[in-house]
């Protein structure tokens, strides 16, 4: 603060508190809705802003599935959370692994077509999955990867941003380290494992947070490549639960929504420092 202006400071706090309230309001209502039964929600005009007493019942039904209030069997969200977790972890670790290796190859080796390879990886930035859904779907179905973890994850694993980030980082690693390693007789993989990996741990952590969230929050891609209930990630599962306003069990939908946003939110809040670093460093 440059000068003391109590009124302005007070205004800043008020604006920020208002911002936090607006940001939190939908989630609070979601929580409240998940503590009522479906009938209570359908009959209330509007919903009370005070939590009800059906918390345990709703979450049990959401997590383990079973027969609904309006008939029809609901898929268990527990299974969906598991699918999401596996996919998000595979995508995050897969992206980091193949990006580390290819950045290492591009920076520390000289081989024919090196520039072309780097350029080809880089250009994938311009081809987000949303603009090529049709043909990518065909490729995945021809490879027999529909309804598999491979189909859910592998097409999303290539990452121009991660490769670029690691390349930039490797370029700042002092030359003397590689020289010393070579004089000591260490091979390239030894150097990679014992020197480069430990040095990159901060970037890896930062990237992990962002890619985990990216993987967890995928929606359009799972919508295309999964048809079986066993392979539905939770973010996509929510959409399946919303079946026309009159028959939607809003309490279960809202419980599922909360469960779906919990893991990535926890990751962001707990790893805030790395997350911010990763975000501001990779995108800029």
């Amino acid at each position: 603060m440059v000068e003391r202006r109590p009124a302005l400071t007070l205004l800043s706090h008020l604006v920020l508190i208002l911002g936090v309230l607006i940001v939190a309001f939908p989630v609070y209502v979601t929580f409240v809705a998940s503590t009522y039964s479906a009938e209570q929600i359908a009959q209330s005009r509007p919903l009370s802003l005070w939590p009800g007493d059906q918390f345990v019942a709703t979450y049990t039904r959401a997590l383990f599935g079973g027969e609904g209030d309006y008939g029809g069997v609901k898929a268990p969200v527990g299974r969906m959370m598991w699918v999401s977790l596996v996919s998000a972890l595979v995508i995050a670790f897969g992206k980091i692994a193949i990006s580390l290796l290819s950045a290492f190859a591009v920076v520390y080796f000289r081989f024919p077509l090196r520039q072309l390879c780097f350029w080809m990886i880089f250009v994938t930035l311009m081809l987000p999955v949303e603009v090529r859904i049709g043909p990518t779907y065909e490729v995945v179905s021809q490879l027999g990867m529909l309804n598999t973890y491979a189909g859910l994850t592998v097409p999303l694993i290539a990452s121009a941003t991660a490769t670029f980030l690691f390349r930039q980082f490797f370029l700042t690693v002092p030359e003397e380290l590689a020289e010393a390693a070579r004089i000591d007789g260490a091979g390239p993989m030894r150097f990679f494992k014992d020197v480069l990996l430990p040095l990159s741990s901060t970037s890896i952590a930062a990237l992990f947070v962002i890619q985990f969230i990216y993987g967890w929050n995928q929606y359009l891609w799972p919508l295309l490549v999964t048809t079986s209930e066993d392979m539905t990630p939770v973010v996509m599962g929510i959409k399946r639960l919303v079946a026309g306003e009159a028959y939607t069990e809003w309490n279960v939908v809202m419980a599922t929504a909360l469960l779906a946003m919990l893991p990535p939110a926890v990751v962001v809040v707990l790893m805030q420092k790395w997350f911010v670093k990763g975000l501001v460093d990779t995108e800029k």
Partner: protein
Amino acid sequence: MEKRVRFRSRWLPWVLIAPQMAVVLVFFFWPAAQALYQSLLSQDAFGMSVEFVGLQNFERLWHDESYLASFKTTALFSVLVAACGLSIALLLATMANRVVRGALAYRTLLIWPYAVAPAVAGVLWLFLFAPSIGVVSHALHTIGVDWNHLLQAGDAMTLVVIAAVWKQISYNFLFFLAGLQSIPRSLIEAAAIDGAGPWRRFWTIVFPLLSPTTFFLLVINVVYAFFDTFAIVDAATQGGPGKETAILVYKLYYDGFKAMDMGGSAAQSVVLMVIVIALTVVQFRYVERKVQY
């Protein structure tokens, strides 16, 4: 910049880069080439007959009222999302940059919507605005606003814009805050000594210095509105009522997977790719320029 010290191996670099190249070739270049190729074909809905039609699919798009309408919808949508998202985030970041006490707490409380999936954000706001049971729609009714996003196009657009902005504020906020914190304090202090008040300092010093960040965020927000909001639209309005909130990506998905118009969908893919490439080039021009500072 190049490394002087290199390792020598004929095969190792290829092994290292192979996984990445395999994914890129199989899932990026092959489908992109397919999209280009298919955009020149006409196929019936069952895939029984295929015919080469040249640029006819593009011509058809050009004359397709609903496609042009979708362009307008997307333009309106992205302008609204970028404008609201940027201004609210800038306001919050400026305030957060001012306060000393509780700065970290505010940041923590404001950034987590980044972690919420767009589809979940869509469902959350859908519930708040549901015509008969929603808390917000009920409040609107009591003050005399007849809210119904299932019937009124304007309401549906408002709903998806609110959900999209809500989700994007945290991202913009982080970048604005980082930008604000990198402005030299001496500059602000000098202006304060010269008698410039906070309002004047903001518009003559802070805002111009923030313009690179703002421009970067503008591009990112447009890309976000174009591509990442598919899930919000699908979860909240399904492009309705009518086709009033069917943005380009939604229409591409709908035509390709629901209406089974492969040629038309592929042509739309190609148009979108051109848009992404244009946006990426703009972004890189900016990055290059920034390096020279």
